[in-house]
């Protein structure tokens, strides 16, 4: 009996946890199908009286979401590819090569992680403004092409791979470059996928930076585009939620595909042997 009640308790707690996570999503989807009145009604309406699928159509007419989607995909894709490349190359240099000042340089890189991101917004903005990059893809992509955290994750993984494998590859006639791509990278797959996943989610959801460096509609990304529903006259919640659902779906699909790696990667960060 004690066993059963203990199990019951665990399930109740887990159920509550799951509910807490799900409610915002439910609320978002439910609201996206409500009428304008129901969306702001007090007490809240939990189930829409009649499904307003037309909200989705209307949301798309308010702002050029096709363009936003294209921008989001483009920016996410390029900054992810860029970050993966720089992280792998830098990690290889720090993990395998010997050069003057390597340790100090790496310590400096790590030190930059201590600087709060908000502190960098203004200097970065000024730099981009001076480069005349405001309202360009350059502004959305270039500042995000490298991440010290990613370098760190990948470097840790590379270092855990035996020196003998490197020697064996050398003997087998493998250059440093081929060793990196044909041995180290495949062996570090889960670390790299973790890095990609975190990057994609971060980049897809980025709001503040794209908002700051773009003001032309055709340069906006999806999260920024969601602002279109907030005007001086108030917020059209049912349309905002319809658009939000649309913005979030790709990430949910992405997460489902890679969740195995996300969990494994986060559990292993830094200690992977």
């Amino acid at each position, binding site marked *: 009996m004690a066993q059963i009640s203990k199990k019951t308790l665990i399930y109740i707690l887990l159920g509550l946890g799951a509910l807490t996570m799900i409610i915002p999503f439910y609320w978002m989807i439910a609201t996206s199908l409500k009428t304008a009145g129901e969306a702001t009604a007090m007490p809240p309406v939990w189930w829409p009286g009649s499904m307003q699928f037309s909200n989705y159509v209307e949301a798309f007419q308010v702002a050029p979401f096709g363009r936003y989607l294209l921008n989001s995909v483009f920016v996410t894709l390029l900054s992810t590819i860029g970050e993966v490349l720089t992280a792998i190359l830098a990690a290889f240099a720090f993990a395998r090569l010997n050069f003057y000042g390597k340790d100090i340089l790496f310590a400096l890189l790590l030190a930059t992680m201590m600087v709060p991101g908000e502190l960098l917004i203004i200097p970065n903005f000024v730099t981009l403004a001076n480069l005349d990059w405001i309202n360009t893809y350059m502004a959305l992509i270039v500042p995000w092409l490298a991440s010290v955290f990613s370098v760190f994750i990948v470097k840790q993984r590379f270092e855990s791979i035996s020196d003998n*494998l490197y020697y*064996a590859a050398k003997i087998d006639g493998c250059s440093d470059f081929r060793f990196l791509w044909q041995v180290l990278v495949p062996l570090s797959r889960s670390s790299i996928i973790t890095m990609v996943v975190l990057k994609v989610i971060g980049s897809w959801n980025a709001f503040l930076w794209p908002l700051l460096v773009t003001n032309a509609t055709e340069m906006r990304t999806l999260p920024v585009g969601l602002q279109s529903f907030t005007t001086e006259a108030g917020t059209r919640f049912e349309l905002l939620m319809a658009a939000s659902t649309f913005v979030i779906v790709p990430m949910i699909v992405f997460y489902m595909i890679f969740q195995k790696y996300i969990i494994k990667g986060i559990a292993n960060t830094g200690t992977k042997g």
Partner: protein
Amino acid sequence: MEVRFNSVSMQYDENDKTVLKDMSFDIENHSLVSILGPSGCGKSTTLMLISGLLFPTDGQIFFDDKDVTKKDAVQRKVGMVFQNYALYPHLSVQDNIMFPLKMAGVNKKKRLEKAQELADLVQISEHLNKKPGQLSGGQQQRVAIARALAKEPSILLMDEPLSNLDAKLRTEMREEIRRIQKETGVTTVFVTHDQEEALSISDKVMVLNEGVIQQNSNPQQLYDDPDNLFVARFLGSPEMNIFEMEDIEDSLPQNISGRLKQQGAVLAGIRPESWIHTNSEEAVITGITERIEIVGKERKVSLVLESGQMVDIADVEINFREGDMVSFGTDISNMFFFDGDGNRVVTTDAE
């Protein structure tokens, strides 16, 4: 292919101690040579220098008549087997064996043929599609050997290849390595700290200590005719018993002991297995039985002499009891003499 070291020295860092000092040797074509020594003696460094993964601070290395001192591992075309096998964990056994060929740009058909041929040679054909992680230590070692042989290396280098295996498998793989070496005829250098391993499979054994070659000869000669005290003590188990000359000179014919001392002999060594139980008149040593160890059919006795020195005696046929006072003698031909620097002193009469 023949390998020749000409006064090779090696130092990792300028301030570090020298790992290898002025080393010269020849490795004959088609032979299997072991480099034997305690840990830290420079044997792995020697192997790395042959491979081209490391470069000497001084001296030259020749492969046949070619000076390869400045050539890297790929140009030297060496094959190498590592202690922990160093197989590529993400590749199948077949891809592991083909990897060096792929790097060399050999076409796929030839690569597959070669992999099959080598898998047959090292007897792992039924595992070609498995990943290294699914194989036992012995099987992984076979794959590592196949991979090392794939590009038909000029020389096969093995760095403690058996030390990760359990005792039974070690003996088996040792014979396998010998067989594979004989079948392919590839010149092989085998690094080990295990004397039994070195003595049992090598054509020649090079004993190394503190970066200096102590002796480079065939295995039997190392045991029968050691060049110096280090080799004499390093080979053989239990270790050779060493005496001060004055403690045992009474049991030597006077003319011989006189000549030996003239030649500078200060130490005498007698192997534990050379002792013969004898009456006290012919005895070289007399002492009290301190400990008797019986392992299988081997009986080992430790004696404490009057001087307090402990002497090991192996292959004892008579059953003593602990505390018995016993005497042992030996023929003078079983005695080895060394001078103050540890070099062997040989008198013609003593032979």
